[in-house]
């Protein structure tokens, strides 16, 4: 592919993921210039989307820009990593107008800052004062439990595993009991009729 050689000159590797999907990984310093050269030199004029992934364990966000040419016959993902703490990215809204809304969403959902972005305000949430919700350390279930009570009628629910164990134990106990009873019965019988046994022996 032509793009691969072009990128090789920039010492970047183009990886083919699927039939129509390619990926370039780049570090944050070179991101802006690479996107500009994608737009101006390589002919990738469409910014399809900006995706953000929270890699909590490694402590960074993975940002993916998906670009397409005029022909729209393949997609190139330009991927970069930014620090999770005080995350900040260059804004692309001056180049691609649609980036404005994508970045606004990312700001709200991940808390990524975009210096120079004009409208970094609420996108979908209203009066939100908690952690940005799509960060993976935000526990949505805990938040729900603190805000909203569920219905209480389901209190009689049983833990099936426990019940299974209980029943198994009960069965075992019943079996043991039965065995014991049988034993004691036998023993009792033996005690009650020792004479018979003796007689038998005789």
């Amino acid at each position: 592919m032509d793009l691969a050689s072009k990128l090789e000159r920039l010492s970047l590797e183009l990886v083919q993921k699927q039939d129509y999907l390619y990926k370039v990984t780049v570090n944050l310093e070179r991101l802006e210039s690479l996107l500009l050269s994608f737009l101006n030199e390589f002919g990738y004029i469409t910014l399809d989307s900006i995706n953000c992934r929270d890699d909590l364990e490694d402590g960074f966000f993975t940002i993916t820009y998906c670009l397409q040419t005029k022909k729209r016959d393949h997609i190139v993902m330009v991927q970069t990593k930014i620090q999770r703490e005080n995350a900040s990215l260059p804004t692309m809204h001056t180049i691609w107008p649609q980036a404005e809304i994508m970045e606004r969403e990312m700001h709200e959902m991940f808390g990524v800052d975009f210096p120079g972005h004009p409208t970094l305000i609420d996108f979908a949430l209203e009066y939100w004062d908690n952690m940005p919700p799509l960060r993976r350390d935000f526990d949505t279930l805990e938040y729900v439990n603190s805000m909203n009570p569920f219905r209480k009628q389901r209190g009689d629910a049983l833990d099936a595993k426990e019940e299974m164990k209980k029943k198994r134990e009960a069965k075992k106990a019943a079996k043991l009991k039965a065995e014991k009873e049988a034993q004691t019965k036998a023993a009792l019988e033996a005690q009650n009729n020792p004479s018979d046994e003796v007689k038998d022996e005789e």
Partner: protein
Amino acid sequence: MKNNLENTIKIFHGPQHPGITGNMSVELDLLGETIKRAQTHVGYLHRGFEKLIERRTVVQAFTIVCRICVPEPDPNEENFARAVENLTGLEISEKAKYIRTMVLEMQRLATMFLWMGGQAGSIGLGLIPQWSVCDRDYMLDRFEELTGGRVYHMYAFPGGVRRDLPEGFLERLSDLLDYYEKRIIVYNNTFFDNVIFRKRAIGVGVVNRDDVLKNAYVGQTMRGCGIKKDVRKDMPYLMYDKLDFDIPIQQDGDVYARAIVRRDEMLQSIRILRQIIKQMPKEGEILQKIPKHRKFKLPSDDTYVQTESARGAMSYYMAGDGSEKIRRMQVRGPSLVHAYTLLEKLLVNTELADVAMTMNSLGICPPEIER
């Protein structure tokens, strides 16, 4: 710039409004009836899908994705299934591919009928919604037979589809297509040729052709401007490379051009469905046998899939992390850019009466903007 907004009154078009497509609102600054500024507000439908999906395994997340866009769930299922298949390297059988293609095209027809109702309703032609929603219902009846669900089908499972075709299904579908062909002529007479619709729609909401490619406008917005692009042709998935169909285009870029493109696409959908009915293999595995009771382990990798929905290209970004759960799934539907970047621009200097019409013709679906 600020002087423009003097003497304007501010009204809210939505969220509870008969002229809005779903639950969103547009804040309008009006000078008389002329709009001086428009601002989209969403968030009334935000559920945090992407958060919910992170908490679920692949099998569990499968049932939730179709809710992302309510009027047309199937492209979502298809995208999700294909993303999982890409990540895990599953191959699906030819019959499953045909069935999925068929479901997608059926969904496209159903969505188009619903759109036609909305578009006609937005100009006060109450007759067409009554007819077209009923016609859409007949397609939902077929879905009911095939998938067991009326609106949410939950049918395209990663690795195939969940059920085989019922007996005699293809014949009944074929009958329905005959009926639809007749109906489209009726709609052509009563709606597309209607003098009022032509008068209202021609020259309104004109999209600038130069913006289209750069700003990632998709679907009919793009094809109404004379740009012949369609994911089904450019990056064919499923069986689309083996099927014969055209991409209808119009040159004007206004509401009427988009309506005509949609009408022609309905005819193309019928054409595709007829081919599928003819070519559908009799035998074939419906669902791949997945070891360990339908448990998927996604590798720590990412992928990006695109499907042509009835309103344009819909894309999913999906990444796994080596466990059963999905690390991240991001939805990029066609509405996001249309509702913000495009709508806010198009509405300026049009009239209040054009808002509902323009919005409908862009195919905006609020639940998909904010997930």
